[in-house]
């Protein structure tokens, strides 16, 4: 196939060529970035939390008749109330294990601080989330212990939420251990939590922090388990239901807790919720964004394909006579078909080359203004291939019609 006749013909349809090429370029630029965003969101949603999610339930409640103040007597009374709740939950038939637990991954409520290897506040520090709970917290969440040991019952402290006391022992996530001790051997070492010393007695394989917001994204897996029951007018528990008994366990828990103390706030929306619900809520925006980007990409591809079909059909209609002449001079139907396919390949090639530049430009702009990562070349290259293929498929129908123009058209005046 020679390029010359195609170029000569296209020169007579400059506007149409420019329109199709521009459409392809813009479509490529937007779709490759949109698909990249979808990929990013899916990767974000697929991250493991480190906890065994099926069967995990979070109970969060507020006593409305709790003692006020943070004197020792009030703290003791609050702790007794919390221990009563824990004991009652533990006795339920569909509950496997229960722990005091202030936070859960993805759940949003976070305590955090700065950890250092030396007591000086100027030492290089690592930010981490604090998970307060009792000796059953690790096993209830289903975290895998990779080194060291669990907390013993005797190590569990309890104090008010705004206390300045700090536990002398902690369990840390592997990510945090690696960040603090890049050479390894974190177990048994002393670290300083906001200047106060604690010994690492255990390391868990993985534990994501409770927050997904941007300010915590640099240390998503830096977590510390603190052997402390926090005493306040709110208390939260982690419950592990027996396999397949999640719903039953939630019903039993609500009934039992209200029987112990009815004057508590434990609404349906956040009082007792399975982990699956926490996950669905927190990733709702990401799922929505992925869906929206998917829908827009689909519409874009359809519109562009339709545009190619429309304009190619028009060109075929305009050139019926020329096609007839070519056929009369001996061109086969396959030659005509190939001519239009090749013509489209040429236009789509120009469009997607421009689209490549636009896609990178759009990505740079998005990176500058919004927290978007660099678009890998693979996305644009696959996108270019898709656009070329789309053009070929869209041009096929009108090209086929062109190839069916009979040679006799050449002899007619219309």
């Amino acid at each position: 196939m020679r390029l010359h006749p195609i170029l000569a013909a296209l020169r007579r349809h400059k506007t149409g060529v420019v329109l199709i090429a521009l459409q392809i370029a813009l479509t490529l630029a937007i779709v490759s970035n949109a698909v990249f965003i979808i990929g990013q969101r899916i990767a974000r949603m697929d991250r493991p939390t480190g906890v065994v999610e099926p069967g995990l339930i979070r109970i969060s409640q507020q006593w409305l008749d709790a003692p006020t103040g943070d004197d020792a007597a009030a703290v003791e009374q609050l702790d007794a109330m919390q221990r009563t709740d824990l004991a009652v939950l533990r006795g339920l038939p569909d509950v496997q294990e229960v722990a005091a637990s202030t936070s859960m991954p993805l759940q949003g409520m976070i305590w955090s601080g700065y950890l250092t290897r030396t007591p000086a506040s100027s030492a290089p520090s690592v930010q981490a989330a604090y998970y307060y709970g009792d000796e059953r917290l690790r096993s209830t969440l289903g975290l895998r212990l990779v080194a060291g040991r669990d907390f013993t019952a005797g190590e569990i402290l309890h104090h008010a939420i705004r206390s300045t006391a700090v536990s002398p022992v902690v369990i840390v996530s592997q990510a945090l251990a690696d960040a603090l001790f890049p050479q390894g051997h974190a177990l048994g070492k002393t670290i300083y939590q906001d200047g106060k010393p604690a010994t690492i007695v255990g390391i868990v394989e993985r534990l994501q922090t409770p927050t997904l917001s941007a300010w915590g994204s640099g240390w998503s897996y830096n977590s510390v388990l603190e052997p402390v029951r926090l005493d306040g007018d709110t208390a939260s528990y982690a419950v592990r239901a027996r396999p397949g008994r999640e719903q039953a366990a939630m019903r039993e828990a609500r009934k039992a807790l209200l029987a112990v103390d009815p004057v508590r706030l434990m609404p349906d929306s956040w009082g007792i919720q399975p982990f699956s619900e926490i996950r669905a809520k927190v990733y709702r925006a990401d799922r929505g964004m992925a869906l929206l980007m998917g829908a827009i990409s689909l519409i874009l591809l359809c519109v562009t394909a339709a545009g190619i079909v429309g304009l190619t059909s028009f060109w075929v209609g305009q050139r019926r006579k020329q096609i007839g002449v070519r056929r009369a001079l001996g061109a086969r139907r396959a030659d005509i078909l190939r001519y239009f396919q090749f013509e489209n390949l040429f236009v789509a090639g120009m469009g997607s080359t421009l689209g490549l530049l636009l896609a990178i430009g759009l990505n740079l702009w998005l990176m500058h203004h919004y927290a978007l990562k660099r678009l890998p070349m693979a996305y644009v290259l696959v996108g270019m291939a898709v656009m070329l293929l789309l053009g070929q498929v869209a041009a096929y129908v009108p090209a086929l019609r062109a190839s069916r123009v009979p040679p006799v058209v050449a002899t007619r005046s219309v």
Partner: protein
Amino acid sequence: MFGYYLEIAVRSLRRNTGLTLLMVLAIGFGVGASMTAYAVFRAVSGDPIPWKSSNLFVPQIDAWGPVARADDGEPQDALDYTDAMALMRYHRAARQSAIYAVAPSVLPTDASRTPIPLGGFAVYGEFFPMLDVHFEYGGGWSAGDDERGTPVVVIGAAINRRLFGGADSVGRMVSIAGRDYRVVGVMKPWNPQPIFFDVVDTGGFGGDGPDLFLPFRTAIAADMENAGSTHCPKGRMPSAPGFAGLQASSCTWIAYMVELDDAVAVRRYRQYLDDYAREQQRLGRFGWPPDNRLRDLRTWLDHEHVVPDDTRVSMLVALGLLLVCLLNTVGLLLARFLRRSGEIGVRRAMGASRSAICLQFLAESAVIGAAGGVLGLLLTGVGVLGAGLVLPVYLAGLAHVDARLLLLTVLVAVLATVLAGLYPALRASRVQPAWQLKTQ
């Protein structure tokens, strides 16, 4: 004449239904997607207090010093207790209020006596005139009440209905977190979104509007803890326990808003903030020179990224889709009009002027645009409904369809299509009648 053009347009459109349908679909989807994105964007980016936003300012004081800065190099977006109280004491703005979020529960006097959890804010009396809060009954409290820490409360319309059946409850007592407060005002329903006066604690959106407001000093004296977020500088956690420890620390947890009436007042207040920071430096509390900010409300909301990035990116991508749909329409209209060169030739030969031809094809574009607009309306409706299902819960309720959006949808569709039809119509009007008639 225009009516005639419309008639020809409809006839010609019916003659070539495939192509017509294609164009209507493209415009419908393009406009539907853009308008859906716009409805969401409009819902979250609106000015919550347009008549006054240029007079409301948020001061930021660099209380942590350059080493404890966040990555963006900006000072903290809330104040610590010491600075907030100093700013209130100096009282340099026309009106001002320190603000922090509280979440007490209230004990109703009815038979149930089940405590109701509430969300509200501890503020100063000037808060209400500063933000033009409207009252159903009564009003705010006085500066004297602020100073004395009088146990008074302003309640929202919804909570007034729940506690007092919607009656004028001014002077009645309510039991909040175990203490008795006298109702001094009942607000008209008020739920600004974004919650511009305390973005730091609320994140900007959510809730059904504040249930109550208490005097700041009263809430502090009652040990009513901060229900919003608290940020402490690295390595400087509160050295004493409890709420008192937080107040003595340099942790930031108090939102602050001031009203400044003109540019001179703004300059003076800026100067005052720097003087204050310099004084703190002299006293040894700050070990660094002043680095303060005083942003007006709109700039502040931008700075706090109140409009989610996702919303802006979606809007941009949807506009891109509309652009592609329009390019598509230009192409298809061009094909459509030039295919009728013969018809144009005849009309020109019969005496139609170029502008008449041009107008005829623009009319045809407008008809296509209107049809696309109707489809766009439908898709916008579906889109906004669908957006409610996939948006974060706190945003879902905000996007809505109203007459303005519907009108805009049709307008955008028709205008965009006519714009797209401009070049093809111009080309069509340039068709040479003689040449066309010859080939016929």
